[in-house]
């Protein structure tokens, strides 16, 4: 029984991971081109299902776009040209990875900006703490009264 179970699990592991939405009839015969098509598709947002790439989407429009990408690759477009073609129609929104440009500056540099701000705040805090300790005011000298009191206590100890 246990052996059977182990065998089943092993067989299960041999199956390919989550089969994509790409149908065999869409695929190109040239494996290098197909590889590039898959690569591009993984970075293109399915505008129907929105947070999925078209490589894994079953939406019909995603399929149309996959076929379109392959057609353009066969016509000799570079990856960048294919992406530009899609961006011209659907905007930067169609790219799952937003491009680095003026309107996305905050998006890309925001984390570093926060890190910088946090670092500066921590540095300021640490520096203030360190100098604060060094410059702590020296204790006030004892008054005549207090000195006398101390002397008395010390003398008591000696006599006792």
């Amino acid at each position, binding site marked *: 029984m246990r052996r059977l179970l182990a065998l089943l699990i092993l067989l299960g592991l041999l199956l390919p991971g989550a089969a994509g939405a790409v149908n065999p009839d869409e695929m190109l015969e040239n494996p290098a081109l197909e590889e590039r098509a898959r690569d591009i598709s993984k970075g293109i947002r399915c*505008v*129907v299902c*929105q947070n999925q790439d078209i490589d894994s989407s079953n939406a*019909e*429009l995603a399929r*149309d*776009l996959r076929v*379109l990408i392959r057609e353009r690759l066969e016509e000799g477009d570079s990856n960048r040209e294919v992406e530009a073609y899609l*961006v*011209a*129609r*659907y*905007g*930067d*929104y169609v790219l799952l990875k937003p491009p680095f440009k003026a309107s996305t500056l905050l998006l890309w540099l925001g984390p570093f900006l926060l890190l910088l701000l946090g670092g500066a705040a921590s540095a300021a805090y640490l520096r203030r703490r360190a100098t604060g300790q060094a410059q702590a005011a020296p204790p006030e000298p004892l008054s005549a009264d207090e000195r006398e009191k101390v002397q008395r206590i010390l003398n008591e100890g000696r006599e006792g």
Partner: protein
Amino acid sequence: MLRKLLFVLPSVIFLGVIAFSLWGLLSERDPSAVPSALIDKPLPEFDLPPIEGLTGPGLSSAALADGEVKVINIFASWCIPCRAEHELITALAEEHGVAVYGINYKDKPADARLWLAELGNPYRSIGADRQGRVAIDFGVSGVPESYLIDGQGVIRFQQIGPLVGPDLEDKILPILEEIRR
């Protein structure tokens, strides 16, 4: 003074977060709306045949370059919201005299003919986009979608989804007015 400010800071940040959340919940913003890339771009070039079995010239960008303000509506007989907006599209053409053209998206000719016979045909002419390829050039994410085109053949507005209820008076007619000016 600075110390006092530091004590107030957490409350200020907290209020900021609350304001942001309220904006997210209450604003009219539709987070699933696909921003249009084609606004202020010229009409894509295309040449579509008519729906099989219907007489007519089909639809091409060349034929649309007539200097007239117009609406292009992408529809399909299998699309339920298209049925819902058909009344409004018809009113746009017949009551307001707007030039409305249709692109029939991925439809079977027989189904499209039946749909038009049943609901009426408000379109000046219709192009059949059976592969959905021209629709991609229009940046379509689903049907129905409508485009307002100015006299220079530039796309001025893209409506994603059906035009229903007050959309005509509140949205389309004012924009057309503005384009005409």
